[in-house]
């Protein structure tokens, strides 16, 4: 036997203390790993919320230009709207008079708006008019032409302070989405010399252009880096080619070919290396002459009520530029009265070009631009134009889909739960049902989508006693409709509801059943009069949670065609429609940056619905949950 007393003394020894310190360090390490895990999980949540939130906030407002629009006296004449060649088509019923008039009035409205808009600028060359009009959204035309068709406005009327919606790119510019201008204040005077043909020489008295010039030089360095990388690639190719040439087994033909290629690569590498060297030289030497291209940053000079875009630096203080907005005079501008604007990104990488920047700055300067809450986002249907697209179609579609899902999944789910808990005998068949329900809960949602596609929409033919019968395809005419999507989601939600309902039915104590049965009630009466009402709050909680899952589901709806462009807001379960999460998916695919912001806002709307549903479930549980 060991002397336990001696061993006991170990616990108070220094060795034990030292060992203890080691153990506590490892304890602290373990705990720190736990904290890090929690922080990582929360960090993921925060960065997700931040990504979505920061984008969504920027979609909360939209920008309009307020203008007074006047319609000419001869506008909106129904008698001249229909052209002669269209008459026979109307008579044949191929075209309708209404639609022709609608189209014609819309045209006239558009012309009026465009005219007014163009008039806001100090001077737009004929060939640039199209570019100016691209800053305007076509959506404002629809609003106004609808008003005209309703008779709100007529010929000769003036629409005061009409808010004309700006295009998505213009909106983004005002939101600071890209190409926002960094302004530099000036310390010296600026002399201007008109060289004709819209070209101007500029001469700055102080070193006001040193900052923009530095920016241009910096861009040269970036360019040099890119060129050097290309050169390295060529060098690598040279190496490869040399390796190939060392191979003795090459045929003469192959050798010639490889040598050609080698020479090509060598020449190209040399050219690129030289280019990079010269770029670096230019970037590092002060002063010098620099021409600006559309790959360099842009420098704009706002002077004498006009704007000049710099084309060329002759040293830091002597420049040449072209006029983008006419100047009131070519006189010398005093210090501080003129400004320099810099745009860091190159013009070719921006959707908003320098000229657009000048126009948009002009509108802002004239006080015509207003921002207002983006209510149309909530109230309008989908659109191909980013600035017009709204989520109402998705909300309504989700509503109808959820109605169908609930109408199917809730009664079936509750009745199935009652059967399994109250009536089913414990036998292999009910076991089989149970296993099935658990399996259903684990099947990926996309498989439900495939099933729905086959069962409801396309169907397939199978051989049957020599002939063929078609299975499925029962709801062909409801492709993309809430009806079909709702059925698929109902099948998917069913296990959730059944499991929740069974748990709450089971939670009702047997004493209640015994009491009812003891009074002579039948099993069915007991269940429907006593058990079900008591279990209802729990069932509702589970159902709401299941519905919330269904509301966020996208993949199965993708399969039954509920993702896509649906301009019309659905009016019932039979209309083709999209749903909120599908809208999120569909929008996220658009290249327009504004759609990215709007997608984020749509996600916020979707999450608000989900939060509302889950809150309701929590309240229900807190309020009605009974512990027996």
């Amino acid at each position, binding site marked *: 036997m060991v002397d336990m007393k001696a061993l006991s003394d170990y616990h108070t020894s220094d060795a034990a203390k030292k060992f203890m310190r080691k153990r506590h360090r490892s304890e602290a390490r373990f705990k720190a790993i736990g904290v890090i895990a929690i922080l990582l999980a929360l960090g993921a949540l925060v960065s997700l919320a931040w990504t979505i939130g920061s984008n969504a906030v920027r979609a909360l407002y939209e920008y309009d230009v307020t203008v007074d629009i006047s319609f000419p006296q001869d506008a909106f004449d129904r008698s001249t709207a229909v052209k002669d060649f269209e008459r026979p088509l109307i008579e044949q019923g191929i075209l309708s008079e209404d639609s022709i008039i609608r189209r014609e009035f819309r045209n006239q409205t558009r012309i009026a708006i465009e005219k007014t808009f163009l008039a806001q600028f100090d001077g737009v060359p004929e060939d640039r008019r199209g570019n100016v009009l691209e800053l305007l959204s076509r959506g404002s035309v629809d609003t106004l032409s609808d008003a005209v068709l309703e008779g709100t406005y007529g010929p000769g009327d003036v629409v005061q302070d009409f808010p004309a919606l700006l295009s998505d790119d213009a909106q983004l510019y005002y939101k600071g989405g890209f190409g926002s201008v960094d302004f530099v204040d000036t310390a010296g005077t600026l002399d201007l010399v008109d060289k004709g043909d819209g070209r101007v020489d500029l001469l700055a008295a102080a070193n006001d252009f040193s900052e923009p010039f530095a920016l241009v030089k910096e861009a040269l360095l970036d360019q040099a880096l890119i060129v050097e990388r290309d050169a390295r690639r060529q060098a690598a190719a040279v190496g490869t080619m040399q390796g190939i040439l060392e191979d003795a087994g090459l045929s003469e033909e192959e050798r010639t070919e490889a040598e050609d290629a080698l020479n090509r690569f060598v020449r190209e590498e040399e050219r690129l290396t030289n280019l990079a060297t010269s770029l670096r030289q230019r970037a590092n030497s002060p002063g010098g002459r620099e021409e600006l291209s559309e790959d360099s940053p842009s420098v704009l000079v706002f002077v004498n009520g006009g704007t000049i875009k710099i084309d060329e630096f002759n040293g830091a203080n002597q420049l040449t530029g072209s006029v983008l907005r006419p100047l009131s005079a070519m006189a010398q501008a005093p210090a501080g009265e003129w400004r320099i604007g810099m745009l860091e990104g190159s013009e070719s990488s921006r959707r908003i070009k320098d000229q657009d920047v000048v126009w948009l700055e002009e509108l802002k300067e004239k006080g015509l631009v207003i921002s207002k809450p983006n209510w149309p986002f909530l109230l309008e249907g989908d659109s191909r134009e980013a600035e017009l697209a709204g989520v109402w179609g998705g909300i309504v579609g989700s509503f109808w889909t959820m109605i169908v899902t609930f109408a199917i999944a809730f009664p079936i789910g509750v009745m199935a739960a009652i059967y399994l808990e109250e009536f089913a005998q414990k036998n292999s068949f009910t076991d089989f049902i149970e296993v099935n329900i658990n399996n259903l809960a684990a099947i990926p949602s996309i498989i439900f989508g495939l*099933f729905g596609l086959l069962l409801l929409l396309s169907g397939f033919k199978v051989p049957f006693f020599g002939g063929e019968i078609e299975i499925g395809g029962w709801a062909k005419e409801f492709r993309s409709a809430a009806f079909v999507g709702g059925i698929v989601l109902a099948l998917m939600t069913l296990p959730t509801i059944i499991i929740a309902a069974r748990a709450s039915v089971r939670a009702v104590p047997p004493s209640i059943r015994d009491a009812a049965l003891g009074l002579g009630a039948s099993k069915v009466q007991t269940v429907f009069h006593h058990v079900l009402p008591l279990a209802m709050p729990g069932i509702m909680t589970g159902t709401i949670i299941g519905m919330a899952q269904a509301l966020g589901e996208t993949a199965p709806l993708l399969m039954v065609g509920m993702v896509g462009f649906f301009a019309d807001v659905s009016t019932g379960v039979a209309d083709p429609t999209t749903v909120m999460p599908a809208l999120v998916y569909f929008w996220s695919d658009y290249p327009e940056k504004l759609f990215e912001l709007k997608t984020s806002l749509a996600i916020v709307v979707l999450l608000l619905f989900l939060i509302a549903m889950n809150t309701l479930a929590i309240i229900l549980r807190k309020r009605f949950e009974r512990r027996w």
Partner: protein
Amino acid sequence: MIGAAALAIVVLSVAIYVFGRSRAISSAKGSLKNLHSRPSYHGLFCALWTFLVGIVLILVLGVLSRQYIESELGGRLDGYVAESQLPDDGLAALEGVGNLDDAIAALEGVPADEATLAFTRAEIERFRDIRGGSARFETTNLQAQLEDIQRRLIIGDSIAIAEGRVPSRIDRLRLNLAQEFREQEQLRQYAIGGLALAAALLTALITFFRVSLPFRARNRSERLIRFTLFICAAVAIFTTLGIVLSLIGETLIFFDKMDWRVSDFFFGTNWSPLSNQREGFISPEDIGWLPLLAGTFMITFIAMLVAVPIGLMAAIYLSDYASPRVRAFAKPMLEILAGIPTVVYGFFAAIFVAPLIRDLGQSIGLDVSSQSALAAGIVMGIMIIPFISSLSDDVINAVPQSLRDGSYGLGATKAETIRTVILPAALPGIISAVILGVSRAVGETMIVVMAAGQGPNLTWNPLETVTTVTVQIVMLIIGDTEAELSAGPAFTLGFALFVVTLTLNFIALRIVRKYRELYD
């Protein structure tokens, strides 16, 4: 009309309930004790039968008759096209004409009605030419199918016009067909409504006259209720059965078309089933699913690499270390993570994580694809964190307190207790949680559709673009390809996915059951 009939059936059911009940009362002659069942059960019996007969009839007839009308419409269409009186040189004039307005202009002098018909016929002919010109369309079956597409388009448009939806085109032919459809549809609806209502009425009468003193109305109606409950419970079976059958069915048809070269599917490394879509067939050389499987498992593996350590450690920290205040804050946060729709995660991956990883990679000189497996995997991992942590939390809490006490009582620290007593005891549960997590990741669709690539790529490099089984299913189904062609591979992939996830779940369930036996 059908809606009205359904409403009428509901009203009739309510009415027969009232009548049946009062008939029972009156037949009892003042002494309700003489009745076998209470009067309301007599009413219920009548109402249940009436309602069931009416509604079931509406559903069945509604589904069947609609298909009948559509085939009728097809016949009419053929009739119209055949009736077209245009001489052949007229058809020649329509060569290369793309829209109706031009067609009317080209056929100067021909009445517009005729011109429209001719144009439609020309379009059908053109379809015939396309398939005629290609050697691939030799089988009559395929010819018929292609003709069918144009016919279906016209019929679909006509129905759209009749129902007030937007057709792809409006012309005289479609308008005529729409008119006929409208008439037939009206007739059909009246017929169904009338038939169902009549049957319901008959049922109501029959059940009404069964009301009598000894009639066991309660037992009968309860039996009916039980049967309905049973059918509802069996929906789970029908659904599973339906899923299995439809997946298997399409898969078999597909493999049949592939000459049963099943090994090409399982072991092939080239996935491009639609590379011959213009010729209208799929080559067995193009259906190797290994690149998809590899992509799926690479993304799943990355996801698990993120989710398992974080989820497990978070669960351990929350259950054994965190103060109640931290727990009250952190747990709901994790649950929020679980409640976020996957499409949101996909968006997050596409606009934040993927660019971030690409930029990070570039800054250290790595060539990272903008749709890297890494980005999709990380975000999927984030999605699965709450799943792993809540399941682990359950199993960790299921380890009895007495084991913790025993360890603490011997002077173990918390970390020692967790590492050497709790984790080994909870291991089976944790493993099954991980397996369930894998099963989720394998079946997850939206994140990979939005953040992973579409090009099959057999690679070990997580910085490259890979594609997954689910992505390919989505691409096949929502792409522009004819359903006849793309459904086969899509459903076959679906079936494979189904088998994989089901197997994983089965294993997880077995482990959990064993584990439960350990403590019960």
